[in-house]
């Protein structure tokens, strides 16, 4: 399509193939890929995990772990030179000065034992730019330009004093110190909260504009693409399946894979109300308090953090109640207090209007455990790697007195209920994909016939296409078994899709609480408004063609 270079082109990847070591799941990390990054444009590389997008970025920067992972064909042309042919020393000169890069994990991307100013200074040092005095000013200027507070003294701080968003700003400042022509951003906002993400995205956009840079922006999130991209290249299993101007791809995707990806993005608008809500309250939380005491010892007094402040809400029978907030808002704490993984410090957790769970302990709690079950976030951490899947699901009933044979029989049933073959009961977790594991996690939670499921970010760790399937499953089960769900998430798109009502949490408190549609359409609290405004791509409506592609696929699967 537009694979021709023009004089706007800064960086051009031509038929690049990167080989993987023997024993990997495929031969080449990327195969025959081509795309260009143009001056003044942001190119988004979109793909799910394992699509080879990071390898491409690292290949450009010469950061591949050679000789294990090695470019074997193609060219990477930058400012007229093929980077793959350059000697390491020359390449080093380009890195940091002509090509800058920022990474996904701002928490670990900065050297913890070095002052921020020094780390930025290193860039000048390495490329022999600017004198001592100028540098100092330049560092301050840079820190200011990425919108960091108190830039004069920040240079003397260590990274641990900064939040994730601030660190990412430092990374950007560092990458842009020598005004490179191209900035490569490898999922730079994935680890950030949604409001922070919005700020960073704005910042990158602005800097790119100001400096007329080319940006290669790697992401898995079409929302983000909609927010920043000028050009888009979609990658699947090491190949570029579709590329072109952002508006084209977003609104009229051609390739089935692109269609599927786009179609899997949850709609931002909450759906019309589905049926009537039961008025019966299953669980009511009243004035729940939870204070963490850290690092307490025999000789030291701990510090306290109040994670939940007088939290109150109800969950009705058969509803999905969303608990929404950014990291540190206390939403997980509340969830864990309800399943009694954490001991609350005050307040009531009244179940079926008959018993205060918060007052129960040890044996007294045991019979109530089974009524409230939990689904966890990380499909890789939530299953014991040393137990067979059947056993994992059967453990719950067995702990409540069911015989082993009966529990295993039930486990097989449940596996089928969550869309897996009952024969997999004899396998170990590591033989399953993330989505399958999450299904197993759901089966485990269902094994005790609970009345309430606490789902703590159950889809955040999944690729977007899998995410949609798991959400569907969850919704389906809820309807079929008429159970209630407390759905904890940071993702407002997901919340919009699945929750009948939501509660928005900030710093341990519920700031807004109500019907999902109402909260979305008419947010009362400023924080809620901020949160909604930060959702990437909120003004982009997902094209029908994509929706249809997903639905077709679903249908196909069911027919098969």
């Amino acid at each position: 399509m537009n694979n021709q270079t023009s004089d706007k082109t800064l960086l051009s990847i031509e038929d690049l193939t990167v080989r993987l070591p023997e024993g990997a799941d495929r031969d080449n990390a990327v195969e025959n890929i081509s795309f260009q990054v143009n001056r003044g444009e942001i190119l988004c590389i979109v793909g799910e995990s394992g699509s080879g997008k990071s390898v491409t970025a690292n290949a450009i920067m010469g950061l591949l772990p050679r000789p294990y992972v090695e470019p074997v064909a193609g060219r990477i042309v930058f400012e007229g030179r093929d980077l793959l042919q350059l000697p390491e020393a020359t390449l080093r000169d380009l890195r940091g000065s002509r090509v800058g890069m920022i990474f996904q994990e701002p928490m670990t991307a900065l050297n913890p034992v070095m002052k921020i100013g020094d780390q930025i200074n290193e860039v000048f040092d390495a490329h022999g730019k600017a004198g001592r005095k100028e540098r100092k000013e330049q560092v301050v200027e840079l820190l200011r330009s990425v919108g960091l507070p108190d830039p004069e003294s920040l240079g003397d701080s260590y990274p641990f004093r900064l939040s994730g968003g601030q660190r990412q700003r430092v990374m950007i400042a560092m990458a842009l110190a020598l005004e490179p022509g191209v900035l490569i951003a490898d999922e730079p906002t994935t680890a950030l909260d949604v409001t922070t993400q919005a700020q960073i995205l704005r910042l990158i956009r602005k800097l790119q504009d100001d400096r007329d840079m080319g940006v290669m922006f790697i992401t898995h999130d079409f929302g983000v693409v909609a927010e920043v991209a000028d050009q888009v290249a979609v990658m699947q299993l090491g190949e570029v399946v579709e590329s072109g101007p952002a508006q084209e791809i977003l609104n009229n995707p051609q390739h089935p894979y692109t269609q599927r990806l786009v179609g899997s993005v949850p709609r931002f608008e909450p759906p019309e109300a589905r049926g009537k809500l039961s008025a019966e309250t299953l669980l009511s939380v009243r004035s729940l308090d939870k204070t963490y005491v850290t690092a307490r010892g025999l000789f030291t007094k701990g510090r306290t953090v109040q994670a939940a402040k007088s939290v109150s809400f109800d969950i009705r029978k058969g509803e999905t109640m969303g608990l929404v907030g950014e990291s540190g808002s206390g939403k997980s704490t509340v969830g864990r207090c309800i399943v009694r993984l954490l001991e609350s410090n005050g307040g009531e957790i009244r179940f079926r209007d008959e018993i205060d769970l918060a007052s129960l302990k040890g044996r007294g709690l045991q019979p109530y455990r089974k009524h409230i079950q939990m689904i966890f976030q990380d499909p890789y951490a939530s299953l014991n790697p040393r137990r067979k899947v059947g056993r994992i699901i059967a453990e719950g009933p067995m702990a409540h007195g069911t015989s082993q044979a009966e529990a295993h029989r039930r486990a097989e049933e449940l596996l089928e209920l969550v869309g897996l073959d009952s024969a997999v009961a004899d396998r170990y977790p590591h033989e399953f994909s993330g989505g399958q594991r999450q299904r197993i996690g759901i089966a485990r939670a269902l094994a005790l016939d609970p009345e309430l499921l606490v789902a703590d970010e159950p889809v955040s760790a999944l690729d977007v296409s899998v995410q949609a399937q798991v959400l569907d499953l969850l919704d389906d089960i809820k309807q079929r078994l008429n159970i209630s769900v407390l759905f904890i998430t940071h993702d407002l798109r997901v919340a919009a899709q699945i929750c009948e009502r939501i509660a928005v949490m900030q710093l341990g408190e519920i700031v807004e609480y109500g019907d999902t549609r109402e909260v979305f359409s008419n947010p009362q609290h400023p924080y809620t408004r901020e949160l909604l405004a930060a959702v990437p791509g909120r003004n982009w409506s997902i094209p029908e063609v994509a929706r249809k592609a997903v639905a077709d696929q679903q249908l196909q699967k069911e027919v098969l």
Partner: protein
Amino acid sequence: MGKLSFIARRLVKGVFVLLAIVILNFLLIRLAPGDPAQVMAGEAGAADQEFIQQLQEKFGLNQPLHEQLFIYLKGVLTLDLGWSYRQDEAVATLIFERLPATLLLTGTAFCFALTFGVLLGALAAARVGRWTDSLITVLALVCYATPLFWVALMSILLFSVYLGWLPGFGMFSVGAGYTGLEFVLDVLRHLILPALTLGLFYMAVYTRMTRASMLEVMEMDYVKTARAKGLAPGRITRMHVLRNALLPVITLAGIQAGQMVGGAVLTETVFAWPGIGRLMFDALLQRDYNLLLGVFLVSSAVVVLFNLVTDLVYTFVDPRIEVS
């Protein structure tokens, strides 16, 4: 302010740890068969019940155990480590006569081990997979797996007996009457073999640890950042990899430096080095309770002190550690 109160808190904690150690050891040692009176009576070549009782009375061993403990603790709290029955000398005097020798030996061994361990480890990590790395790794493994006393004996045999290059025992040439610089050189000559022998094992430990730690740090995101910044490999190794890789090495070194002081028994025995490790061993065989307890207390105190120093060093090298 923050640092001071931090030190104070750690010191108080250290004192509690030491007291617990003293009580534990006090009871432990009394479990051993025989007491100093019996040993001394035995050595006298002829002894009877009366003589033993006479000694036991003199040493206060006829009092109930809890009273002995109480008396001892009272002494310790006023920094009085008691009297060595057998050596007929204040325990503190005996220990502080010997402590400098041990500190010299272990200090030298430690510096040697740390310097070369880190250097070799860093070198191996920088050349990972190449023959330099293999050589260093094998060398470190062998040093790590060889019994210390065996190396000690072999080195005496080789360097002292056959080659005659270095003295094989003692801390200085007795009776040579060296003074000033000559004396210092003489001590240094005596120091080489024991310090090297003792240091070799620890060197191996630090080599392995530095290497492993560096390899781990090399995988860190911030090292990738540094490369993306276009820094030269040498600078990345020095400023980013080594500095972070040394943190666990410092922790380990801090623990071991303290432990070394009490743990140099073997080296001190083979090289006739007049330190407290040997003092302890002799005191144990002679059931010289107070002396033994004293050595334990002092060497444990050294450990506590080194741990404190390590923590302090840490607050300087690792800004993440908050002192307040």
